[in-house]
């Protein structure tokens, strides 16, 4: 029942906001998201106590063996936790703007949360696909209605690109589904594991490609990333936060939940290529990020680089790789949302994101600088920040997999430091520019968002074990399937 609540509660409130268009949309959606976070917290607490997954199973289309089944285990737990934790901050970041009481805007964000929760919780493969696709609609409307320059064309490209990818996932799923035993077949993900693993290496290879294209576009992995920088740049900040903070994790989650346990032979054929592509993305994204003038675009490329490392790590199929990927998904989500919010704050006050025009903000807003540095250091993966734990484990798994790839991927730490420190230096330090002279200090609401996020960065770096322990059991089950 708890699972049903955390799945449908945002949907109900979101639908209410969209239909009734109440005046105080901000306070409604903020309190809804906080309530949602508390409810999710309870669910996670229960899982953590018993280390047993919570499931909910209900027939959906019995004629074809499709169930409405949900399951929260250690892996889904981290992602629903991330989704529930971040939403209050994302919604909070709209405070004092014209979007705060825009009922449609807030409603779409809650619908989006519901769809993403569904994708992370689904135990049935078609239910997963259902939510995986459904989440596109709210973010599409959010980005193309409230976005910036040239939004219509850019978001349209994003939409077509991602749906195109997911259609391959769709045929892949149907292909496996029809090979499950029983007259009505079954779409349960665990039945899928058993069925898919018995397929021939050739079929697994093709299926791996079909699944991986869908997830690679979602994450995105080089060379499927061309939609990403434009979409991130043009979306409204909250849309970008949803996209980069949570939605791209649907891709990485899909790899862990579906590809790794289902196609060990398929990964045998294509895994190396996929890892190399991911690492190319890491280096390529970092190099482009170094040259960016637009701060938001810089972050978009840095997000692209980070997710490449996550993808490479988990595709090594090692226990460390998957654990590191999970941990890094969590910390990347927190860091990137904070960073995008900092850019949003700067843009609100100076109407510019151009690094050449910014500078010297630290002289007028010390608090912003401190928070920004905290979040950036998390992103650079300095020890004692959450990013360090994730990247360290990921790099270790890649080193174990191949020394050369490990060395190449390791460059990310240097490159990451270069572009992030450049971002800090150009915006926060240096001489006060024409547009930053009148920079006002942070408001209370902005502090309420940034300071907790910065604290999470630190907490994640100092006490990683609580979370690593939380997912350990479920990751172990997946790696045991591989033996």
């Amino acid at each position, binding site marked *: 029942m708890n699972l049903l609540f955390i799945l449908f509660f945002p949907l109900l409130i979101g639908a209410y906001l969209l239909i009734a268009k109440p005046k105080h949309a901000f306070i409604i959606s903020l309190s809804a998201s906080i309530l949602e976070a508390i409810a999710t917290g309870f669910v996670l607490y229960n899982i953590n106590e018993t280390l047993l997954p919570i499931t909910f199973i209900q027939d959906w289309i019995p004629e074809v063996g499709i169930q409405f089944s949900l399951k929260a285990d250690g892996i889904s737990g981290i992602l629903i936790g991330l989704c529930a934790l971040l939403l209050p901050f994302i919604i909070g970041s709209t405070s004092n703007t014209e979007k705060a009481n825009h009922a449609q805007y807030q409603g779409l964000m809650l619908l989006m949360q519901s769809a993403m929760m569904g994708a992370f919780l689904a135990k049935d493969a078609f239910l997963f696909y259902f939510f995986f696709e459904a989440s596109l609609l709210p973010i599409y*409307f959010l980005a193309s209605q409230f976005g910036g320059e040239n939004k219509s064309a850019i978001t349209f490209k994003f*939409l077509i690109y991602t*749906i195109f990818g997911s*259609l391959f996932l769709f045929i892949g799923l149907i292909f496996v589904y029809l090979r499950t035993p029983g007259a009505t077949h079954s779409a349960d993900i665990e039945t899928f594991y058993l069925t898919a693993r018995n397929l021939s290496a050739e079929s697994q290879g093709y299926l791996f490609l079909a699944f991986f294209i869908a997830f690679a576009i979602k994450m995105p992995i080089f060379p499927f990333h061309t939609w990403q920088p434009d979409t991130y740049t043009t979306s409204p900040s909250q849309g970008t936060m949803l996209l980069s903070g949570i939605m791209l994790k649907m891709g990485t989650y899909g790899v862990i939940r579906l590809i790794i346990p289902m196609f060990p032979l398929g990964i045998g054929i294509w895994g190396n290529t996929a890892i190399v592509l991911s690492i190319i993305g890491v280096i390529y994204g970092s190099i482009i990020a170094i040259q960016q003038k637009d701060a938001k675009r810089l972050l978009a490329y840095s997000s692209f680089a980070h997710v490449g490392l996550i993808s490479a790590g988990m595709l090594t199929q090692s226990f460390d790789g998957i654990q590191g990927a999970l941990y890094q998904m969590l910390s990347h989500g927190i860091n990137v949302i904070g960073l995008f919010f900092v850019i949003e704050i700067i843009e609100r006050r100076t109407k510019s994101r151009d690094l050449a025009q910014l500078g010297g903000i630290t002289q007028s807003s010390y608090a912003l600088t401190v928070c920004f540095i905290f979040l950036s250091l998390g992103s650079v993966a300095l020890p004692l920040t959450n990013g360090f734990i994730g990247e360290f484990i990921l790099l270790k798994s890649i080193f174990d997999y191949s020394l050369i790839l490990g060395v190449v991927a390791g460059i990310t730490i240097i490159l990451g430091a270069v572009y992030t420190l450049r971002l800090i230096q150009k915006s926060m330090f240096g001489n006060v520019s024409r547009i930053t002279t009148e920079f006002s200090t942070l408001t209370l609401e902005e502090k309420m968002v940034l300071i907790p996020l910065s604290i999470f960065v630190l907490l994640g770096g100092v006490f990683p074990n609580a979370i690593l322990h939380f997912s350990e059991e479920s990751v172990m089950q997946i790696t045991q399937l591989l033996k």
Partner: protein
Amino acid sequence: MTAIIALSLFGISNLFWGFWFPRKILQILTLLFLAIGIGLTAMDWNHELLWFGNMFRTTNTSINFSLIIQLAAFLVVALSRGFGADDEHTHPAEYYAILLFSVVGAILMVSFDHMIMLFVGLEILSVAMYVLTGSDKRNLKSNEAALKYFLMGAFATGILLFGITLVYGATRSFYLSNLANIIATTAPESMPSFLYIGVILMLIGLLFKVSAAPFHFWTPDVYDGAPTIFTMFMSTVVKTAGFAALYHILSGVFGGIYSTWVLTIYFISMLTLIIGNVTAAYQQSVKRMLAYSSISHAGYMLMTVSAMQSSSTSTVLYYSLSYTLATVAAFAVLILVSEYQTGRKEKPEDYSSFEGLAKNNPGLAFCFTISLLSLAGIPLTAGFWGKFFIFSDSFNRNIIYPVILAILMSAVGIYYYFKGIIAMYFKNGDIEKIEVPMLFKIALWFCTIATLVLGVYPNIVKSLF
């Protein structure tokens, strides 16, 4: 079965009511007649019986198809608010009568058990459609469409009839059950070769009616030229009846010689998918886009027909239903918007007429969005499950490449369906609040909600079949 008799009588009586009653009352009467027809059809549920000298068979499948057809006709009548104004050029009584007759023809087409019955049903439906297409007498495009439809349609019916003759010559029977027996028991070598020619000719005749490529050339012009309300009728009722007949004959009779015709159907379905989707992507007019999209949906449905699985019947039914609901809603919004834009814009049926619709008409925009999403096959709508059932049927037959092609074409489909959504939500336009009549509102919301309910819980309908 009583439904056909009742509807024919109602149709004739409608001609007389026209002397006394104004259009409004005739519309209500016709709705009532169709409701009675639906009730009578539903009463035959689970009574598998033969009628009219064993030429007509009611089965649960045929009843389901008849219900979909009558539901579509019901919605069309509810949405037909005057063909033009109430002036001397409109003949509402005749229109409603012809609509009822064509529904009778469509019901015959889904429940025939004799080749002649198929032919009679097809002709009743087609002749009615030729008249309705040309009903906008003062519009040149409508006249052209009627003539085009009539000439090509008559030709296609001739081909169908020739096919029936050849099949009769080979088997000496018109009855489907006999035919199926003979075809299943005789060795293929001892069959006269003109049987196969007959089968292909019959297929061509029926494929013409469902506008599959390369027999689709009439579709865009006729759909475009006919008054929109009849375009709606054509793309729902005629298409459903045509597919039911095609499926009925292929699975019921020619299932024994599956291997001889399946390649043709494969090829035609792939061609239809490509032509329908790619051409639709280039259209500027929403009405033409919907015409091409109707061609492309014929391609998807042909995939199920060629898969011929035990579940295919329910797939065809489910797809027809979801397609009907979405198409009716899409055309209904198109009617309202193009009526509003007539006189304001040069081409009232273009995408540009929809620009900014969402601002003052959020309800209409929402209904149109849902219907387009359903046609595109996005989750949460009925169309998604329709596609799902089709793809899984095809995979069950190990049909891989057409499915991959269909997937690619779905992506193209998303492109042109979303063009409408973009125009409504993200383009600036100045459309004021459009007055929506009560019946329109009910029909629109019925279609939209049914599409959503079927999208979230397809089992409501799937378990019926």
